[in-house]
């Protein structure tokens, strides 16, 4: 094992990807370390960044007892790697084959919750959030030896709490895979003392299995589609129009269609003002309300926030905040117009493409480590 300095911490494996490649990084925060993998490179090495080696009491499970002791005694005598980049070779220390598999799968589960590229345009079906969260919670129980300290990823209640209404619908599903998963999830909820909307009812249903028959049938909420996503600008001929793409890491998940060129914009006259009309393709189930949007073209620009459906109309002004006139708008060269939705981040289109390719492959032929939510999404695509 080779340890390298990573921003003041010791890290095994390759230096972590920069923020630009974020859509591809699956992480897991365990006691005393952050583990990361690249989602579409299943055979690549696990990267372990120690945030506090003395809290990483699970390390022997991954590198064996002597490996654990070797890492602890080596790093214990070294200062934190604050200055120049440094490397340490620990020749006899290696990751025990198979030991990190379940952790990687859990990390991918967390990744699926946040980055799965659901897109109507690209034909990538959304994942059932309730089933995914239940499966992630159950995997976390299996990995409890890695969560001696509470971490961002050790909170099971938070994964389960919102889903009682959806699980009530699933409890009577014809599909035994779904029923089994739901039962296991409810058993876990019972043990850890979950309370919240729908839970008493859900517990009651499972306590008294005859009650199941009384539950009204309900459809699976695969992904709720918000209306009006594909509507282009209407009315008079626009002065200019174009498309843009949203950086995934600039916006929260479960709002926008993850396809490329998912923002239509046009410049038009509204009353006496020149406005940019922006329409982002939404997929939901969460609304786009409040997400920042900025249009910039040379010296003119405008900013505001999207409405629930992903639309915004922005008055364009120059650098002195003076409204743009209609004649200036017709004279303006709109070729280099940028539309920025969400925060300002750098993200490569290429990493989004890689994610889509990986997701499609997962849907086409389920991987060994596929989550039930993925399998169901794959089946629904046929």
């Amino acid at each position, binding site marked *: 094992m080779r340890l390298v300095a990573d921003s003041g911490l010791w890290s095994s494996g390759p230096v972590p990807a920069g923020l630009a490649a974020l859509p591809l990084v699956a992480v897991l925060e365990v006691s005393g370390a952050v583990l990361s993998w690249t989602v579409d490179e299943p055979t690549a090495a696990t990267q372990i*960044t120690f945030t506090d080696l003395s809290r990483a009491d699970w390390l022997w499970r991954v590198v064996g007892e002597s490996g654990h002791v070797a890492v602890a005694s080596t790093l214990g005598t070294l200062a934190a790697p604050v200055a120049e980049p440094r490397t340490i070779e620990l020749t006899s220390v290696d990751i025990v084959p198979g030991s990190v598999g379940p952790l990687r799968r859990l990390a991918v589960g967390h990744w699926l919750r946040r980055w799965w590229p659901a897109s109507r345009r690209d034909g990538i079906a959304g994942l059932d959030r309730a089933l995914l969260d239940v499966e992630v919670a159950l995997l976390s129980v299996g990995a409890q030896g890695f969560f001696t300290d509470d971490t961002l990823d050790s909170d099971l209640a938070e994964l389960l709490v919102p889903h009682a209404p959806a699980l009530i619908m699933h409890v009577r599903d014809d599909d035994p895979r779904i029923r089994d998963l739901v039962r296991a999830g409810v058993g876990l909820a019972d043990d850890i003392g979950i309370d919240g909307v729908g839970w008493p009812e859900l517990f009651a249903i499972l306590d008294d299995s005859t009650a199941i028959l009384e539950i009204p049938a309900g459809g699976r909420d695969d992904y709720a589609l918000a209306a009006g996503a594909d509507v282009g600008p209407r009315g008079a001929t626009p002065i200019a129009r174009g498309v843009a793409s949203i950086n995934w890491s600039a916006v929260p998940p479960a709002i926008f269609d993850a396809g490329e060129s998912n923002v239509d914009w046009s410049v038009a006259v509204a009353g006496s003002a020149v406005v940019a009309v922006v329409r982002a393709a939404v997929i939901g189930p969460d609304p786009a309300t409040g997400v920042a949007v900025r249009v910039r073209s040379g010296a003119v620009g405008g900013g505001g926030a999207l409405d629930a459906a992903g639309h915004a109309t922005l008055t364009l002004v120059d650098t002195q905040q003076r409204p743009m006139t209609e004649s200036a708008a017709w004279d303006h060269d709109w070729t280099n117009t940028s539309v920025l939705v969400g925060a*300002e981040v750098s993200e490569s289109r290429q990493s989004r493409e890689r994610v889509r390719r990986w997701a499609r492959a997962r849907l086409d032929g389920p991987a060994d480590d596929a989550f039930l939510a993925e399998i169901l999404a794959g089946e629904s695509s046929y």
Partner: protein
Amino acid sequence: MAVAVGHPRRAVIDQAWRAIGPGVEVLSTDDGGPLSRTVKRIIDPLVLRLRSNPQYSLPVVTSETAAAMHDLIVRNGPELCAAATWFETLKLERRRLRIRTGNAQELYFPVCFELAVTKGAPAPHDHQTAAGVLQGIHQGRDRTAIEVLQQYVASPDVVSMLADQLDRSWRDVRAGDIVTGPFLAELGTVLGPATSHRAAAARQQVWNAVIADATPYNLGALVRVEAAELPWSIVELGLSSVAPQRQPRVSGDSDSDRPLDRSVVDRVRSTLRRALDRDALPDIPLLCEEEVDRACAPWGLLGEDKQATLVAGIEIAVELAPLNLNMASRYALAAQIQARLRKEAYVLHARRYLAAGGPIHPRQQQVVDDLAAYAQPYLSRLWARLHGRDVWQEPCDDVDGVRSLLEGVARSVSLDHRQRIKAMLELQVAG
């Protein structure tokens, strides 16, 4: 490289656990090791008794210590098996009573071991004991102690007696002459690196000097003096809502939750709420009397080691900023904590809870701004922990213990912050 010797602590526990044999399945994982909560709630505190056996708490233990730990756990096998049976009994009863609050393992494990030691295995069909235990756990034992407190301070005589004591104690605290330079230099050693045994021993000696030094006391006395010259502002640090610090009141709801603003009764109430082992506390009148003196002491803490730890914490706190890439650190410990906080912020980026450099949704702005003022929640939590230690007279004289306290506080504040950042995003899912 020298051949490394020793055993990872958790591996030792795992092996000993497996050596117990059958009978502890409900306290075990699917692969036969102990559950995390079994270790946290039973093995560590009740079998290995880490408080009195600190050698068992090292991340890597010697072969001798490993053998002693192994022996201790295996010898407790019969009690652990009985505890497992008690847990099954309590869980059945929990289901029967349809109790669904609280994590069953977290709440019941210590009680199960206690029952196993005092009563052995449960008698067949003994619902009553189990029902009684569950009642005790789920009906908020702390309510009674807090009610006693309320009744006690409802008497005007009591309040005026405490108020007199408060006036006297407050006047008794005076700042002596103060020169902070040498003290801060010593802190530099305490919060600096130590990569050899010799350096570690030297660091402990310096800490011994620091907690015997009058500077933390004097600094704490000085924050209540108008126009005093201090290295920091207690308002900016979030320790007080005004500077200089005001004399605390006996009771009454404070208009702020800042540590140094809190009333005596408020402070006693938190002690009662936090107390796991309430029998060890003095009775309410004595507790109030003691708390008056504590509230009047510099930094609101009686122990000089606690005062020194708080000052060390202030020096660390002002150098922590999870979202700041270019934070300079004077102390190695602060640099190390800051590096961790940065990595934890990276996890938020990688999970799409935060965009690079700021909120991913405007709704998170407030929490992100709070992150910039990291010192405030950090010091509030550190103060609360020190207050607890002060009440229970647990020393802060071990420099490694102090350093891990300073690190642990950063860990829990960071987790708290990040959960709030998550929650602000998830609001819209619920709404």
